[in-house]
């Protein structure tokens, strides 16, 4: 991670706290920056070892595990839920605690699967979970209708949101409907460092960009 990434990490830590505050959150990131920002965000969510979930819906979980390993980020407290590996023809292996789910087109069944895994004592305890990060959730729109994805977010948040930070990363410019759906469900916005600075300067100068 370079100096810019570390500044972003500190920015997320300031907004999330050492133990991420519970509730639904959304972060607006350009699609091309997803990998970098999600890595930095995951580092901030893990903090000093917070237990949490990483749900991969866009690429096999091994890629995120590889990134965490390469950047020296301890991830033993993280459970990975992989919805794409069985379609990805990938042969890369990385050591991590992982549950495989039967495809992104069945995403609406994930909340009940999580409930079941947690109750069966399979190394994942929902009650201890402090964060849940879903990578590129708008990718689910490739496999599901908008309403099904919205319903999944609502049920996922109902399941975890009381005690867990449920964090979604969305490119608002590309998927404005999904982004605003999350806000309408009571989601709060996390902000990138540059965006925070811009808003601070704008509020001091009385400028409103009307991005909401």
């Amino acid at each position, binding site marked *: 991670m370079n100096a810019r990434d570390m500044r972003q990490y500190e920015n997320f830590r300031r907004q999330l706290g050492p133990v991420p505050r519970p509730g639904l959150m959304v972060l607006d990131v350009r699609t*091309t*920056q997803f*990998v970098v920002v999600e890595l930095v965000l995951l580092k901030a969510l893990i903090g000093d070892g917070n237990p949490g979930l990483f749900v991969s819906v866009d690429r*096999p979980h091994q*890629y995120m595990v590889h990134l965490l390993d*390469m950047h020296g980020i301890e991830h033993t407290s993280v459970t990975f839920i992989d919805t794409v590996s069985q379609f990805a023809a*990938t042969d890369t292996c990385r050591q991590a605690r992982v549950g495989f789910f039967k495809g992104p087109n069945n995403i609406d069944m994930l909340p009940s699967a999580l409930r079941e895994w947690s109750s069966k004592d399979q190394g994942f305890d929902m009650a201890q979970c402090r964060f849940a990060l879903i990578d590129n959730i708008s990718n689910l729109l490739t496999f599901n209708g908008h309403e099904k994805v919205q319903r999944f977010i609502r049920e996922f948040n109902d399941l975890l949101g009381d005690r867990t930070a449920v964090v979604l990363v969305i490119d608002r410019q*590309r998927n404005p409907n999904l982004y605003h759906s999350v806000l309408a469900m009571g989601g709060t916005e996390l902000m990138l460092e540059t965006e925070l600075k811009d808003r601070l300067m704008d509020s001091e100068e009385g400028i409103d960009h009307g991005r909401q």
Partner: protein
Amino acid sequence: MEGNERDRTRLERIPSGVPGLDELIEGGFPFPSVILVSGAAGTGKTTFCLRFLCEGAAKREQGLFFTTLSEPSHWMLRFSSQFDFMRPEYFGDAIVYEDLSVLLRHGDQDKLLEAIDRRIAEVMPQRIVIDPITVVGEMLKDQYRSFLFDLTNRLKHWNATTLVTGEVPPGELYPPEIAHSVDGIVLLHLTEEYGDRRKYLEVLKMRGTNHSTGKHSIDISRKEGLVVLKARF
């Protein structure tokens, strides 16, 4: 709802940086994707790729340039610095240069893939170039096809747009081993016409894109590098 349908199907695209090309491919290369840039010696493949990386660097997108030619970065910079679009300060930070030739000499597919994976994970680029991929074929021989399958599969998951260059003998269009596993193929032609050699660009394949199918005249200029000219043939 129409808006929702669009959310579902629209591909992210990144500008190629090559003047005149993006209007032929609906605004840019799909992101992420793996694109083959194919042509004979002297058609402008490396210039094309450098323009792509410099365009990214100007937009604060991280670049990673893998060379298979055992060419020191200062040597490559010496020639490419003649182009106005090239900023030497990009190289090192915004565009990381990586020489794969030493690993290639060992001819071990797994080690090569691991090295590429490791470097990508370290640098986390949005734009990657592998120039030229065909040299890998000469070194890996029997392992080449499985290497290409694994490589393109992994590259697609790294959330980057990758350009791989393929050098072909005059008269050949593209290296057939890799054509089926890439998302796009851009051909750079060099043909003799009335005693002159003329250059053309053709988009042969670009998945998810309503692309131009014509041959377009190109020029390589000091100012902009490779430029797609307006006239079509």
